[in-house]
């Protein structure tokens, strides 16, 4: 099935898309969660969503970084020359994403443990994570713009000022708001769920506006990405229905509908996002083509899934309230 065709590329691409989608869930929670907690801290509100968010943000960032390693690995197989070249052109400015993440990570701990410094820490975290999001948007587009490499390199320019960066970042931020709401809803009930539904729908409106902005700039998805665009639109419509349902009946099955459709939208969206970049897909290099170890990876992956499931089960069993307590 397109785009997962070709013996080697197909497998790499499949793993890339799936792990990227997983990574997107965590980082969306971190970026939007930090901003949300900041807003609530500024308002001095005792918001239970913000309290929960502050509590789990460091863990979510840890998961986001860990989950991000896998797509970063497969990105280097699929688009090595383009990714490395864009990296090198942005140079130390690009490398600044790492200190930004380190500062952001410790800011989340400060926000969790200190009331006095909470607002400052959350503001610092929000700035850091926005910087990382902007940097990734920038490098994604720079990878696609090979003619700009030489010009930027010669001029020593470290910022890719293409007009597509802002709408693309806005599109991502909108999608992240909805993803944040999708994760948060499973820890919320009643009025909190209604608030999250409003946020999720607002996120989708932002996505729509950003997409329209991109279209006015000439962006298009050739051949509707072999139908994936239609799947994405269909999933978004069902998801929106799910959020409206949640708004009307917060504790009904709307959460399940919104999550399922949102997951489908995320995967379809990841494929649609990839479609324009497939034009620069590099032929597999001989070393990559002949590399062994796939069965080892599959066996370890299966073990990893079981191990993580066991961890979750152990925690649930261990932290379940006892009948006599």
């Amino acid at each position, binding site marked *: 099935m397109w785009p997962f065709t070709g013996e080697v590329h197909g497998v790499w691409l499949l793993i890339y898309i799936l792990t990227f989608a997983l990574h997107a869930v965590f980082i969306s929670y971190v970026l939007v969660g930090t901003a949300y907690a900041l807003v609530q801290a500024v308002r001095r509100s005792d918001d239970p969503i913000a309290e929960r968010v502050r509590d789990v943000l460091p863990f979510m960032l840890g998961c986001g970084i860990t989950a991000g390693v896998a797509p970063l690995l*497969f990105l280097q197989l699929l688009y090595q020359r383009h990714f490395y070249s864009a990296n090198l052109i942005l140079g130390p400015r690009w490398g600044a994403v*790492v200190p930004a993440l380190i500062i952001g990570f410790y800011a989340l701990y400060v926000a969790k443990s200190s009331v006095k410094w909470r607002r400052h820490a959350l503001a610092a975290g929000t700035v850091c994570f926005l910087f990382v999001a902007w940097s990734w948007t920038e490098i994604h587009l720079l990878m696609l713009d090979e003619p700009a490499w*030489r010009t930027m*390199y010669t001029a020593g320019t470290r910022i890719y000022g293409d007009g597509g960066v802002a709408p693309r970042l806005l599109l991502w931020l909108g999608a992240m708001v909805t993803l944040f709401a999708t994760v948060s809803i499973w820890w919320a009930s009643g009025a909190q769920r209604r608030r999250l539904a409003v946020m999720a729908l607002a996120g989708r409106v932002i996505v729509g506006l950003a997409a329209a902005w991109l279209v006015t700039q000439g962006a298009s998805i050739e051949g509707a990405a072999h139908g994936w665009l239609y799947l994405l639109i269909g999933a978004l419509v069902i998801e929106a229905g799910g959020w409206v349902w949640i708004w009307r009946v917060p504790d009904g099955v709307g959460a399940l509908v919104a999550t399922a459709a949102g997951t489908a939208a995320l995967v379809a969206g990841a494929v649609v996002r990839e479609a324009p970049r497939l034009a620069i897909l590099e032929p597999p290099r001989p070393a990559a083509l002949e590399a062994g170890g796939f069965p080892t990876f599959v066996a370890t992956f299966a073990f990893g899934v079981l191990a*993580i499931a066991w961890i979750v089960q152990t925690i649930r069993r261990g932290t379940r309230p006892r009948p006599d307590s």
Partner: protein
Amino acid sequence: MALAIPYYPVNEFGPLMKGLVIGGVGILHVFLAQFAIGGGMLLYYFEGRAQRGDADARKFVDGYFRVLVLVSFVFGALTGVAMWFTTIQVGARTIGLMVDEFHWLWATEWVWFSIEVCAGYAFYRFGSRLDDRARRSLLGLYAFAAWMSLFWINGILSWQLTPGGWLDGNGMWAGFFNPSFWPSLFFRTAVATTLAALVACVVINTMDLPRERKAELIRRASRFAAPIALMPIFALWFLAVIPEDSRTWLLGGSLPMTMFVGVAAGASMLIGAYVIVGIMIKRLTINIATATLLLVLAFGATAAGEFVREGARKPFTVRGVLYSTSLTPAEVAHLRVTGATVGDPYPLRDEARYPTAQLQRGAKVFRVLCDACHTKHGSNSLVELVRTWTDDQMRLNIAKLQRTKGFMPPFAGNAEDVEALVQMLKWEVAGTPRSWPASADPAVVAQIARWLDEVGTSPMGGR
């Protein structure tokens, strides 16, 4: 046959040579990651003692140490990502080849790291609410996953120096279980447990306990530093299996390398002597100042050890396959004919600085062939290196580069490239005057060409 050599944009880091940039990030990463591995094992041991009724062990496990492990593995993960980005900056083709060759094993390592993160966080967050069996199981899984992470990455890193049977076409596993795989793995494991023991000694000193109970905890923690006694054996094993030329440089052939070997060995010996003789045999206690000093020594030993490991690979980044110039031996031979810079699509950033086309060419040759390890005026400065050389000495030394120093790669350009580089260096030595005569004597170029032909394109150390 034309070779498609991928040219990447080249960045400079001011006075820092690229080895210092990657070294700085790498040493920090290795130190933290190895501590996280040893820390998991140490926590597992102390948790066992806590469950057998040792209240101080329980306090230790639930105290700062648990937090330190958590912080180190998150910081370790982030510096790991930093390693990836930094390696792209300093040697894109090297990291590209490693990813190409070992991507499934890297993905395997990622799975173990994911398990490590999940188990570590689960213990950190829910440990106080779990029963004894669940706590120990989580710690056991964390410690094992952390060590497995080391197991996989160790094979990939050691392959760079000793690819072993992989070079003869025996496949990826021959490269992974290469000659230096086991000594490196055992050595790193010993380092990991030692670091954990030293950090534990610092942490125990901060605990609110009577002196004798602290001493008892320290004695128990210090057992984890005992494997340091085996490190000389692993180091000798490592020395025995690395290529002969690399061994020669470490053992006196290259004074800086030998000095770093000495620093690593000396610092490790001091730590080992203090821990084994002082704490374990003589049952001395250790205060926070001494424990911190030992930890600083361990950082120094780690830094020196990593420098040795990186330096021993010269002139390659992947032995026999990729030179430190990011060129393969076949590409070196190809560039001897075509010239080093004809395929480089990137102009100089400071082209206007050079008064002649020949100097511009020299600057491009410097960027393509020298910039990976040298700066012009900063650390490992090429201008300072050649300042006192005569013109012909410079031409000869550069043309016969692999004979000038055994750890240098063969020059990957033609005679005109050598002359352009020589002129550019002379111009820099002269203080970058506004005008500079072109060097166009055909006899000079012909002489350089003869030297290039004489020396050939093979490295001195073999593969």
